[in-house]
């Protein structure tokens, strides 16, 4: 068993997901099968291989340090689930 129910619950907390008992059991089984499958990568000796994070060897993408048009407050807030004036409104953080 690569992953236990307790680990699934821990990872769900890290991912900010709330799983019910049925989902937790289902994911434990499925993740176990998938992680078991990916173990096959260990057949390969990669000690001297450099990791690839990107298919294109892009260096830093620079541009002029100049102002350009932006969305503006009204457009940026147009999809806010809740707002007050020019701000997003969220539940109280500090009790």
């Amino acid at each position, binding site marked *: 068993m690569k992953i236990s129910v307790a680990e699934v619950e821990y990872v769900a907390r890290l991912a900010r997901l709330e799983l019910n008992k049925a989902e937790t059991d289902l*994911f434990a089984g499925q993740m176990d099968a998938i992680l078991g499958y990916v173990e096959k990568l260990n057949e390969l000796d990669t000690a001297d291989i450099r990791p690839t994070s990107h298919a294109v060897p892009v260096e830093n993408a620079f541009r002029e340090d100049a102002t350009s048009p932006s969305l503006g407050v009204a*457009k940026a807030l147009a*999809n806010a689930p809740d707002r007050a004036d020019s701000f997003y409104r969220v539940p*109280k953080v500090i009790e």
Partner: protein
Amino acid sequence: MDIFELTIHELHRKLNARELSSAEATRAMLERIESVEPRVGSFITRTPESALAEAAAADRRIASGDAHILTGIPLALKDIFLTEGIRTTCGSRMLHNFIPPYSATAWERLRDCGSVLLGKLNQDEFAMGSSNESSAFGVTRNPWDTARIPGGSSGGSAAAIAARQATATLGTDTGGSIRQPSSHCGCVGLKPTYGRVSRYGVIAFASSLDQVGPITRDVTDCAIMLGAVAGYDSKDSTSVNTPVPDYTAALTGDIKGLRIGLPKEYYIDGLDRDVQAAMDRAIETYRRLGAEFVDISLPHTDYAVATYYLIATAEASSNLARYDGVRFGHRSEQAEGLIDMMTKSRSEGFGAEVKRRIMLGTYALSSGYYDAYYVKAQKVRTLIMGDFTRAFENVDAILTPVAPTPAFKIGEMVDDPLQMYLSDIFTIPVNLAGTCAMSVPAGFSASGLPIGLQLIGKPFGEETILRAGHAFEQATEWHTRKAEI
């Protein structure tokens, strides 16, 4: 021939000759959508009013003599492209109410050409899936057999082309999501080289793999669409600044002496008999056209699916962290406190496949497992890229099947995600290597389901695979067959 049957180049000719107006073409397409949509389910959002207004504007542009080949052509887009003022859901309940404040560069370029937007097409939620069954807006059905999946994640896009509900579309391809549904629906689909088309305004799944590309009725349309959307975009820092060739000029029909590689790892025991037969016929056709075949090896193919599902899920778990209910998207009304609001919003907004991939990615990136899973996968990615680099020292293109089987039945693989993931085994290595590949209709199964061949090209070798795909298309009649829907 019905108007909705016309390709881009055929419709353009009629628009230019004033045999037809864009308004007439758009109305014909809207009627076609209305008539077949209950059986296919390709669309999430339809935009008939703005489409007719855009068509009228296109007709004025054509009359002024300032038309592009795409002016007045009715298109539809996968619902992953941001379209200013038009709801964009990405197939998710999380974004069921999202109206983008700006547009994706790829769509802006098509709009600047004067094309007409008919609506937004169904897809797997956040482009995660191989069957179009994970959309929060229901399943799309394959127009060739409505009991079967159209493929995914651009399943709505491929189904819309096969059902003649749009002249052409754009999809996105992270592990085969343009090529596999194109193969299953009898369309042409091209995943360009990573960086060839801007990803700005395309909702991110796995940023180092995602790429935008066309799904069309034939290879000529594919070249036209790619030419319109390709090219550098300063808003996408991974966009590559190299000139865009005239892709339609590459369609010469001449492939004499083209060296095509056949990787032994793709022609395996257990490959579906009809798929193997289609490939055998395709090889024979190419020989007749003057191509030369070379046996090659891509030795790390067997590790590609495992590599992909670690890298893609890791990047997805990071990209999807932005859906926290604060700035846009679904916000739970049941929550108490900030963290609870984020957790409940995500839990209510995401479907099962998205949650499963976020969980896998979070696990692979978590403390203690990062090196064993994520970094290991990145190293194997280096080996897979090396396979392609070596292969392309000896060949101009590589010929493989797109998928191991024709379209499977709806519900057949829903409970077995690993089997579903393995159905992408022939498309995934291309995304890891970052190079280009195209699906072209190459036959039908005994039960009448389309089968596609895959042509893989060198990085920025789109002209070569378009030329090879076009030559094959001209020598065969597969692309002329129509789904009876």
